[in-house]
């Protein structure tokens, strides 16, 4: 234990910029030397997810995988972070004097460079990264409703479906030659420029659809939301299944390839940014007031009904955006995707990560996604391991891993040498 603390204390002086630089070095190293080093360790190719998948199939290769991870990731990150600390601290001090948004953008660019390089190794990684970011959007937005506002909504897959179908309809109708809508109506070159509008339209359709749940549920005090929202999810699913015009149970396919990594990254950042802004504003804090004591909120001039409706529609909007991105990442959707299993996944990410915390939701989405991918070879057993972990978290941390904590960019990016 003591050695661990000692070891950790060596790295207290490393700022965020230092860690990012270390990670960047590691992914660059893998990009250029990954193949030879993996052969050195007797591995057939670069392990896709730090070797997690590979290890489950070939347990004898555990030492090789550990060796590879140490050489490619752990050593470079730690060494570079530590050695460059004086430099990165100086950089952080300079950035600290610039506006916070500028320094945030610079860090985000570096971070983007890391994931872009890492996921450039193969398509599987790219897909995992994109789906993880979509999960972050879903989790953070559901946290607004289930965490910040303390309701229990089950309709996120339904909102996702609305967004996915609405945005797919737009892109397929105007910019793609496909089976359902026929030839493209507009030149395909316009497509990428119109894509943001298609995504926003998907979010808007989801937000409008959410009124179907919100109006009856928030009319009276009481816990109807869970049931109404669950019903809504099933209604959306079977409605789509029965609408031949949008593909019925077979779904929609051949969406244009607009959801590239930078696009998905952009929307994820915008989602986190706006939700963070909202929940830290006085207006957004009223969600907590409504959750913790509604009559008191009422007596303190808070329009509780408006607050609930706003938060619910806002959450639904982002679920719709996530759905739109999802459809264009997979370039295929069908209604059965948006059922109970999706709901269970999203709920698990929210409650595992932590209520009332964007930070927690990001951690929850990333860990459940990576865990889900890593345990994929276990097939069905995956659905025993993940719930078990969830139960353990619920026992020891009833509000989730990281709850009631807000992102503090200033603190996160500041130099650590003082």
């Amino acid at each position, binding site marked *: 234990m003591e050695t661990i603390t000692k070891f950790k204390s060596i790295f207290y002086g490393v700022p965020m910029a230092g860690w990012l630089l270390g990670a960047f070095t590691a992914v660059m190293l893998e990009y250029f030397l990954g193949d030879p080093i993996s052969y050195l360790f007797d591995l057939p190719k670069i392990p896709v997810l730090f070797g997690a998948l590979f290890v489950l199939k070939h347990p004898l290769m555990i030492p090789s995988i550990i060796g590879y991870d140490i050489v490619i990731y752990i050593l470079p990150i730690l060494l570079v972070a530590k050695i460059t600390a004086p430099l990165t601290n100086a950089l952080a001090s300079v950035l600290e004097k610039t506006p916070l948004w500028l320094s945030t953008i610079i860090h985000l660019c570096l971070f983007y460079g890391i994931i872009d390089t890492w996921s450039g190794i193969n398509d599987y990684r790219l897909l995992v990264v994109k789906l993880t970011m979509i999960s972050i959007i879903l989790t953070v937005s559901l946290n607004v409703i289930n965490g910040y506002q303390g309701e229990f909504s089950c309709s996120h897959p339904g909102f996702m479906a609305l967004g996915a179908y609405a945005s797919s309809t737009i892109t397929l109708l105007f910019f793609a030659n496909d089976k359902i809508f026929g030839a493209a109506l507009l030149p395909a070159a316009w497509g990428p420029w119109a894509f943001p509008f298609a995504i926003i339209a998907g979010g808007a359709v989801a937000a409008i659809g959410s009124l179907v749940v919100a109006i009856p549920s928030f009319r009276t005090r009481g816990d109807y939301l869970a049931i109404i929202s669950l019903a809504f999810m099933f209604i959306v699913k079977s409605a789509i299944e029965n609408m031949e015009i949008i593909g019925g149970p077979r779904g929609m396919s051949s969406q244009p390839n607009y959801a590239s990594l930078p696009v998905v990254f952009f929307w994820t950042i915008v989602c986190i940014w*706006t939700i963070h*802004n*909202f929940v830290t*504003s*006085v*207006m*957004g*804090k*009223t969600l*907590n*007031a409504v*959750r*913790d*004591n509604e*009559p*008191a*909120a*009422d*007596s*303190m*001039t*808070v*329009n*509780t009904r408006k607050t609930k409706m*706003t938060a619910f529609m*806002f959450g639904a909007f982002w679920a719709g955006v996530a759905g739109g991105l999802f459809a264009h990442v997979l370039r295929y959707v069908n209604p059965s995707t948006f059922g109970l299993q999706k709901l269970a996944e999203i709920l698990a990410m929210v409650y595992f990560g932590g209520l*009332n915390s964007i930070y927690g939701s990001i951690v929850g989405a990333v860990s459940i996604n990576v865990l889900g991918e890593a345990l994929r070879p276990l097939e069905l057993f995956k659905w025993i391991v993940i719930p078990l972990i969830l139960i353990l978290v619920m026992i020891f941390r009833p509000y989730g891993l990281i709850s*009631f904590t807000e992102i503090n960019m200033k603190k996160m990016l500041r130099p650590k040498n003082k």
Partner: protein
Amino acid sequence: MPPLLSVKAMTHYFGGLCAVKNYNLTIKPGQIIGLIGPNGAGKTTIFNLITGVHTPTEGTIELEGRDIVGMKTHKIASLGLGRTFQNLLLWRHMNVLDHVRIAHYSQLKYGLFGAFFGSPRRKSQEAEIEENSHRLMKLFNIDQFADQTVVNLPYGAQRRVEMARAMATRPKILFLDEPTAGMTPDELVHMVKIIRQVHEDFGVAIFLIEHRMKFVMELCEYVQTLVFGEIIAEGPPEEIQHNPDVIEAYLGKEDLT
């Protein structure tokens, strides 16, 4: 001067139970009025009726000449009725500063766009709100707890959080439901001082429910006595204190001192 608040012939039934019967009240700007009465007399119910938590079965309530019967609670609150609660309705996961900040809700000048994208107007207004919140927290002597979760505070401090929060809504009349319940004698003396100061600094009228006669004597210029939903006596506190009906009904045979 026209009255701030005027309640006329207000009656309320909970099912068959007549909780308040033919109740009348006039509050002029700057007055401090007390409402006393035994447990279950209907005092809190009167607060809830005026603040719109319940709608009275009969009667009129006018705030600055405006009929507020049937209006939503938050609307009435933003028109200038601030209140505290007898059994402390605080937001348990929230720190003290946020309590006071949120109570500025009806004064917000930015919309959803500002909330989502952090407009300059939002930034400047939230800075103002924060400053004002700190001023209020200092006044109520809870500034040192600003970033502590409210459930970790001592009881007396929690009561003061409720008052600071109510004052942040910029009330014209402040309703206090047993502001000294559960307080030590020291805290009680302090509370009298605070209420006086709030009254002077903000010129707010105060309507308070209280059990401790000494407290009522010291603060109120007018006292109503409620028994089983009916006013049995009202007038200046010295009169009420010696009114035989009040002594009889309110405290058994003891003298009210």
